[in-house]
Structures are given as C-alpha cells and as structure tokens.
C-alpha cells in the first residue's frame, strides 16, 4: 500500500466522521501505518451532507487532503451524488444499499452494498449502522487487519457500549466476507 484516499460521506447524525476516525485510528495506532483525517466544517457541514476524508499510507503523509478518492463510502443518496464525480474510475464504492441507489457509476468501479440500517436495527439500535459499515468496509477493502479495526472500534465508542458496537462490527464484517 503506498497511499490510499478514502471518503466517508453521509448525513449528519449517521456517524460517518466516527467511521473515518475508527479506520484512521486502526491504521495509525493498531497497525504501523500513517493516517491523516480531515473533515469539512462549517454551517454546510451541519445537519445535511457531511464527510470525513482519510489518507492511509506506509509513508509519512505530506499533502493532507483527499482529491481523488479510491474508496467512497456513501450512507446517503445526496452524499453519493455529490462525491461520485470526484471518485476515481476504478474506485471501490461502498453503499448503504437501502439508502443509496448507485446511479451513474463509472465502468471500472466495484460496488459493495449492505443494508446496514436494517442490520443495526436487528441488533437493537439503528444508531450503530456506522459500525456495521466499518465492519463491512474492513471485509471488502482488506486494507486493514480485522483485529486492528476491532481494537479501534473498542477505543472509539462510548464506555459501556463496546459490546453492542463489536457485535455491529462483526455483523458488518461477516456480511462483507459472504459477498467476496
């Protein structure tokens, strides 16, 4: 892996920033990689579309922003529509398949869909859909070790919710494994 540019996008409240933080934390703290996370701030980042951008690399990261994502994770149609054009032609596109209809894909793109909201609800809380997505992301991209991300999930969620979040992580991971 030289450098991989990833965009996590969705609606405010879906936990997309936390999803990016978990992946960045997993790579930089629990694997010996470099990770840089940036996010869009400001009134436009509240409520509606929001996104986190993560660069993962084996070398020190200089330029901090993502310009042409190789992986796009989209949790809302709006986010998908907004960020698809800048995404690379051969990108991996990861979507919440009941919230996003993947229209206008470029020919080289690989799409992986998961009904993360429904799976999260089955586990007891709709709020943990982002962690289901993190598990799914880990399985289908194989960028970061399963255990490293698991540790990052534990370290990133509120105290007392680790168990539920780890179940969500595993559920997403299994779902992704089954697709491969």
């Amino acid at each position, binding site marked *: 892996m030289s450098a991989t540019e990833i965009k996590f996008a969705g609606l405010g409240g879906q936990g997309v920033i936390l999803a990016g933080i978990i992946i960045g934390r997993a790579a930089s703290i629990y694997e010996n990689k470099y990770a840089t996370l940036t996010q869009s*701030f400001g009134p436009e980042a509240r409520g509606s579309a929001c996104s986190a951008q993560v660069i993962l690399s084996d070398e020190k990261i200089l330029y901090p922003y993502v310009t042409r994502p190789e992986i796009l994770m989209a949790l809302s149609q709006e986010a998908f529509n907004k960020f698809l054009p800048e995404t690379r032609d051969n990108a991996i596109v990861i979507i919440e398949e009941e919230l996003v209809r993947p229209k206008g894909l470029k020919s080289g793109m690989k799409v992986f869909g998961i009904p993360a909201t429904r799976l999260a609800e089955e586990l007891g809380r709709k709020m943990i859909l982002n962690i289901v997505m993190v598990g799914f992301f880990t399985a289908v991209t194989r960028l970061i070790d399963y255990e490293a991300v698991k540790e990052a999930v534990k370290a990133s969620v509120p105290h007392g919710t680790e168990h539920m979040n780890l179940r969500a992580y595993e559920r997403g991971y299994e779902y992704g494994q089954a697709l491969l």
Partner: protein
Amino acid sequence: MKADPKGVLTGAHFLDGDHACCEGALSAGCRFVAGYPITPSTEVVERIAARFPSVGGMFIQMEDEIASSIAIQGAVWGGAKAMTVTSGPGLSLMMEHVGLAAMLETPCVFVDVQRSGPSTGLPTMPAQGDMMQARWGSHGDYEIIALCPNSPQECYDLTIAAFNLAEEYRVPVMLMMDECVGHMTEKVIIPKAEDIEVTPRRYTTQKPGKYLPYQAGRSEIPLMVKAGDGYLFHVTGLTHDERGYPAMNAEAHDRCVRRLVEKIRNNARRIIRLEETDTADAEVVVVSYGITSRVAGKAIQMARADGLKVGHLRLITAWPFPEKRLRTLASHVKAFVLPELNFGQMFLELQRVIEGKSSCYPVPHAGGTVHEPEAIYQRILYAARHSRLKDKKEVAR
C-alpha cells in the same frame, strides 16, 4: 523539571491538532486557560473545559478575547502557567495585551488557529495571514516568539515548547496553528511524564525589600515573584525602572525597551528551531512553515524526481526569523521559493534578509485551502531555470 504526571495522557492517540494543543498545555503544566470561543480554535477550549476540573486546572470562558488575554496575565502573576486560545479576529482584539505581556514580561502563551481573513473571512478554512500581526500587532517595540506546528503531533510538542520558551525568556509566545492542522486528525504520541522536560517559573530567592522586579542582571531576564508572597511589588504597563515604578523619560524608556528587544535578539540562536533537508548542495531552497511545509514537501519530491537539486528549510520558529542561517545559505543557493497561505508576509522578511544575494520567489495564496503541490512545483522549476540564466549572465560579464 519533569512534567506533572497528573495532566499527562501517556500513550498513542488519534487526535486532531486542537485537542493535541490542549494535551500539550496540560503536559507543560498549564493550569489556567481563559478563552472565548472562535472557529477554528474552539475545540481546544472545549477539551480544556472538559479536562481541567479533574487535573486541578481552571478554565473560564470570558466575555471576549480582550478579557481572556489579560485574565491569563492576572493568573500568571498569581502563580499559574496560563494560555489563551483564539483565531485571527480574536487575536486582533488581544493585541493590546500582547504588548502588556511584553512590557510586564509576563510568561504566557497565545494560541492562534489561523483562518482566512481579513475580518470574518472564511472561519472554517485555513490561512497563514496572521504572521505579521503576531510579530508586529501591538504598538511599540518589543519581541515575541512564534512557533508553527505542521501536524497534530507538533501541536502537542510545540505547545510544550511554547510554555518552556515563555518561562525561559519571560515573553509572550505565539503558537501559530492554522485551521488545517487544528482540524486534522493524526497519530499523536504523548510520552511518559518523566520524559517530558518542563521549564519551571524562575522565582527570586531574594528577600522582600531587597527584590527589584525588573533587575535583570547579565541574563537580561529578571526573576519573578507572585502575588501573596509578601513582596508588596508593583508592576505597570508604563515605562518603568528596575523597581517596577513608572519612569517617564526617554533614557528610562530606552533602557526598558532595549532589554525587552535584546533579551530575544541576543538569544535568537538558542531560540530558533529549523528543519533542514538537503540544503547543503541545493540550488533552490524552499522556505516554508506550518501546514504549507507539508505541501511544499510534496512539491519538492516532484522536483527532485525531475533531477533538480532542491532543499527545504522549514521554519519551526517563525519569530525570531533565522536571519543568519538564511544569509549563509544565500551565499551558495541560487534561489529561494517561499510558499505561504497569504499574499507574501514571511516573504518580505526573507527578501529583507537575502538582500538581493539570491533570487526570491513567493508562492502567494489567499487561503481557504492549501496550495496545490503543482503550483509550488512550477515555481521551483521557474526559479531553477531563471537562476541558471542569471548565472550565465554573470559569467558572461
């Protein structure tokens, strides 16, 4: 002296620069922060508000930046290590008290998470437009120290350095962050408390009655006292003598201000921190600081791939400016390129120092985002080409 373990979150963290700055302050022994929320610095005080009560610290959100910038000075004279945190518009309001801190020689830290200006500008986007304000913003002659972190790790490290320098030289120290490093999240390693060097306040050992607040001695830096210790001392923002009493004449003013300036200028060599890469045989040297240094690093990689001899000099301290080092480099470097997120602030300083010995090229940018590495790369190419032409002319002559 080693850090107090109570405030030190030893370990590897995934933190943004604002939060790392808070942790740096805690490691440095800062236990008083007064601030007023302003994007993009607010996350610093938010974390401080959450962290301080459990480590014996006090955070107060003041009514404005003017109040914040003097409340910290009251706290310092009460015995605390203190800082305030702001962004450009707030720093503008604090300027009178940067001057007060310089005049009273109050050791304290001003953190400026720079955003694009002037005025309200682009609150959520980066710039480096406060560099000259940090240096010259208050009236009169004085010196400050300014540090420029380029990563969350450095936001942590240089916050500690800022406190240590403030204590060592009794001077306000500016930590010149920007929105990009402030809001960027990366790995931050916080060492064990016993591995963190912290400069304690230097108090006088003289008895009350003997002690003179501004008797500096050969070190040029007077020793402090704090309120409540029985010294019954006086300090004033007026020009003062060694007793701290107002001294309203030109001779006293020269003595007073000359020392404020010289205690930094004469110690510049010890204060200045630079990071140099491949400058020894470079034809072109890129001078950069803060977030721009990383983008410049990328551009330099591109230029080296073309076979160009390009060096990099990163200003970790922007003020005092490394005049001597740059003059030395100018004797063998054909051209300097200075990219920054403003229309040429540190560039003016570079030009002044180089005195025409080498060519200097700015890469100005109004801010709102960082440079495209391509823009800096193109400038390096241009500088290299242009300087060679100039050389040939010189040879022909």
